[in-house]
C-alpha cells in the first residue's frame, strides 16, 4: 500500500512539474491557461495528499477555478486586442 502511494505521489509530482513547464512555455495564451487550470487541479490533489484539506479546497476553488476563469477571459480579451494589428479587419478587406 505504501509503495503504491509513493508511486502515486511520484507520478503526481512529475505530472505537476511537466504541466508547469508546459504551461510556462506554451506559445498560445489560451493553451497556457488551460494547462494552468489542470496544474491547479493536480496541485489541489497534492494538498489533499499532504493532509491540508483547507488548502486543497481553496486551491481547487480559487487557484484552478476562479483564477482559471479570469485568465481565460483575459486571454480572450488579449487575443481580441492583438488580432486587429496582425490581421486586417474584415471591414477594410471589403470596401
Amino acid at each position, binding site marked *: 500500500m505504501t509503495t503504491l502511494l509513493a508511486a502515486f505521489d511520484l507520478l503526481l509530482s512529475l505530472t505537476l512539474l511537466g504541466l508547469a513547464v508546459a504551461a510556462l512555455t506554451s506559445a498560445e495564451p489560451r493553451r497556457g491557461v488551460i494547462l494552468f487550470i489542470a496544474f491547479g487541479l493536480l496541485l489541489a490533489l497534492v494538498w489533499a495528499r499532504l493532509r491540508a*484539506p*483547507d488548502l*486543497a*479546497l*481553496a486551491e481547487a*476553488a*480559487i487557484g484552478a*477555478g*476562479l483564477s482559471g*476563469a*479570469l485568465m481565460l*477571459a483575459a486571454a480572450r*480579451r488579449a487575443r481580441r486586442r492583438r488580432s486587429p494589428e496582425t490581421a486586417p479587419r474584415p471591414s477594410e478587406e471589403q470596401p
Partner: protein
Amino acid sequence: MTRFVSWVLLPLGLVAIAGVLVWAFYLATTGETGARLADLALARVPETGVSNPVTSVLLNYRAYDTLLELAVLLAALLGIWSLGPAAPGFQRAAEVLQGMVAWFVPLLILAAGHMLWVGAYAPGGAFQAGALLGAAGVMLALAGHPSAGLPSEPVLRLLAILGVLVFCLVGLALMVLGLGFLTYPPGMAKWLILLIETGATLAIGVTLAAAYRGGRPARASEGAAP
C-alpha cells in the same frame, strides 16, 4: 544576450532557489527539537472560539493577515474597475444551460453557507465559501446574465468593502472596549469570528464575480441606457 539570460542565468537562478529550499527543508526537519510554535498554538486552539486550527490561525492568531488579504482583494477589484467600462457580456445561453444554471446557482449559495458555518470545526471558511459564491456569479455571467447576479452599483460598492469594513469595525470596537485591535474577549470570540467571516464571505464572493465581469460598474443612471 537574451540567449545568455535564458540558457545560463535563468537555470542557475532556479538551481540556486532550489538549493535554498532544500537547505530550509533540511534545517526545518533536523533543527532543534524544543517547543515549537505549532505545539503552543495547537494547545490553545480551544480558547480561540473555533475548534478548526486553520480557522483559528486565520481569524484569531493572525487576523491581521486575513484583514490585509481582504484589502489586497479589494485593491485588485479597484484596479480592475479603473480599467474602464465592462466588455459586452456573453450572449444568452440556450435552454439546457439555462436550466442547469438555475439548478446550480441555488446549490452553490447553499454550499457557500454550509462552508462558512462548517469552517468553525472542519475544513472550510470564508475564502472557500466566498469562492463558491463567486463561482455562482461566474456561472451566471457565462450563461448570459448581464449583471452576473450582482446587485446595483451602490449596493455592489458596499458589498465589495464589507469584509474590510466589518473587520475594521470589530477591531476598533474592541479597542474602544479597552482590548487590543482584534483581541477577542474569550466568551465572544466565536460570534465575532462568525460575524467577520460572514462579511468576508459576501465581500469575497462579490469581488470575484465582479472581477470576472470586469470593468467599472455602471451607475444607476447609466444602467438604464442600452
